[in-house]
């Protein structure tokens, strides 16, 4: 089926699930609300979402030969796109490229597909890929970003983010407010402006966080064997706590004490008011608490 026939088909069936055939190019547009809620699912290949200054969604790309159906449900406030394949074991890559209003709320899900989202300024962004990489460059009030084995990258601005990977790395920048990140074996690099609440957790990956904690903020970073490095302004006030069973603690804030009996070292140091709290823990990883 050629592209022009597809366009006609989409236009006629815009409010009902649509069926297209494998190997087709896609090119379809919908007029939507500026804050349209869009969900897109793809098993293998790529998902690209880019914002633009129109109240319109345009979907282009290429369907893999294994695709049985491109399921689309569209209305002005909601757009759902899902790639359905005939055979679970032999799946060809499908590339979906979406241009969407800047304020569109996005929920993207992929299995073995990379997800890339850019140019948005919206209320909520959620992107999950089971084994692909997820990269977001956007401004959003709430970001959820996850991959099991892929890398997770966010740059832009958000006051609230949750990021997770099992074996992939996590890189987050342009953050403020509440930040949560966890990996098992991946490393994480986090840059936060003013943080209210931060929770970071790894098993063997390293944690590197650079931030300033608000006056009543909370920061906790925990690892088993990975190193924990936290950078704070020299004038940061609050309660500084660090503890490790067999790792080394080094700090620009206070003095480290060692257990009288058995292994273990810890730090407890107070600067100014007691409202803010920094708590760093490791089993065998080293802890470094440094001032900028």
């Amino acid at each position: 089926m050629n592209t022009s026939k597809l366009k006609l088909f989409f236009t006629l069936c815009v409010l009902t699930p649509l069926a297209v055939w494998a190997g087709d190019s896609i090119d379809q547009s919908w007029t939507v609300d500026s804050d349209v809620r869009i969900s897109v699912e793809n098993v293998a290949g790529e998902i690209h979402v880019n914002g633009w200054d129109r109240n319109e969604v345009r979907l282009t790309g290429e369907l893999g030969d294994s695709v049985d159906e491109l399921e689309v449900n569209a209305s002005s406030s909601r757009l759902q796109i899902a790639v359905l394949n005939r055979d679970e074991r032999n799946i060809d890559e499908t590339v979906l490229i979406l241009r969407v209003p800047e304020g569109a709320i996005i929920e993207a899900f992929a299995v073995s597909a990379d997800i890339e989202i850019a140019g948005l300024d919206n209320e909520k962004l959620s992107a999950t890929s089971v084994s692909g990489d997820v990269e977001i460059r956007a401004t959003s009030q709430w970001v959820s970003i996850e991959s099991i084995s892929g890398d997770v990258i966010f740059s832009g601005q958000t006051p609230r983010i949750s990021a997770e990977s099992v074996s992939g790395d996590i890189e987050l920048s342009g953050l403020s407010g509440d930040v949560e990140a966890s990996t098992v074996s991946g490393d994480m690099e986090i840059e936060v402006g003013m943080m209210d609440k931060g929770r970071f957790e790894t098993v063997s990956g390293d944690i590197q966080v650079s931030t300033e904690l608000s006056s009543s903020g909370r920061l906790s970073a925990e690892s088993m064997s990975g190193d924990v490095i936290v950078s704070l302004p020299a004038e940061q006030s609050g309660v500084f706590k660090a503890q490790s069973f067999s790792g080394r603690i080094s700090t620009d804030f206070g003095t480290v004490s060692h257990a009288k009996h058995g292994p273990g070292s810890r730090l407890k140091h107070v600067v100014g008011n007691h409202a803010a709290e920094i708590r760093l823990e490791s089993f065998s990883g080293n802890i470094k608490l440094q001032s900028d």
Partner: protein
Amino acid sequence: MNETELTNAMESLPRHIKPQRDLWPGISSRLESQQAQTGRPAATPMWRSPAIAAAVLLALTTGIMIGRGTNAPPQGSMTTLAYSLAGTTETTEREYQAAFRELVPLNYSGLRVAGDDPESIRGSWDELQKAESSLLAALREYPANSFLNEKLMDLRSQQLHFVKQMVLLEQNNWRRT
């Protein structure tokens, strides 16, 4: 963390962990559909082991969480608490290991993930195992160390989460057929 803080922290832990959704109905219907199409029993249900392992683990961990919530001793019995936790670890460790052994061969299901992903996931699992071994070794030497006990509970939580992620991965092998 001092004694009071530890007790308070433990009491604030969730009393149970509820799976986000029941994975079974979807998997079951897929199997039945496959069986009807082929006219023969479905291929060996490779998902079953991790699913069972996950279920066992969920139940087990739920039990542990309940235990942690309801059995928290009064303040001032730190040593008893620490030994109790270590004892819990001892008795549940074998069950954990049995459950996880079902999951460890991560190529069990022909994971439809690209490139080095199965290897990297396996590597993460190995890291969790190594962390567990190190912690248990330390706990054998310092069973009353509250920090180690706390770390072990944290690790259990991470292990549970890992298994849940694997179930998600497995579930996605069956979706959208």
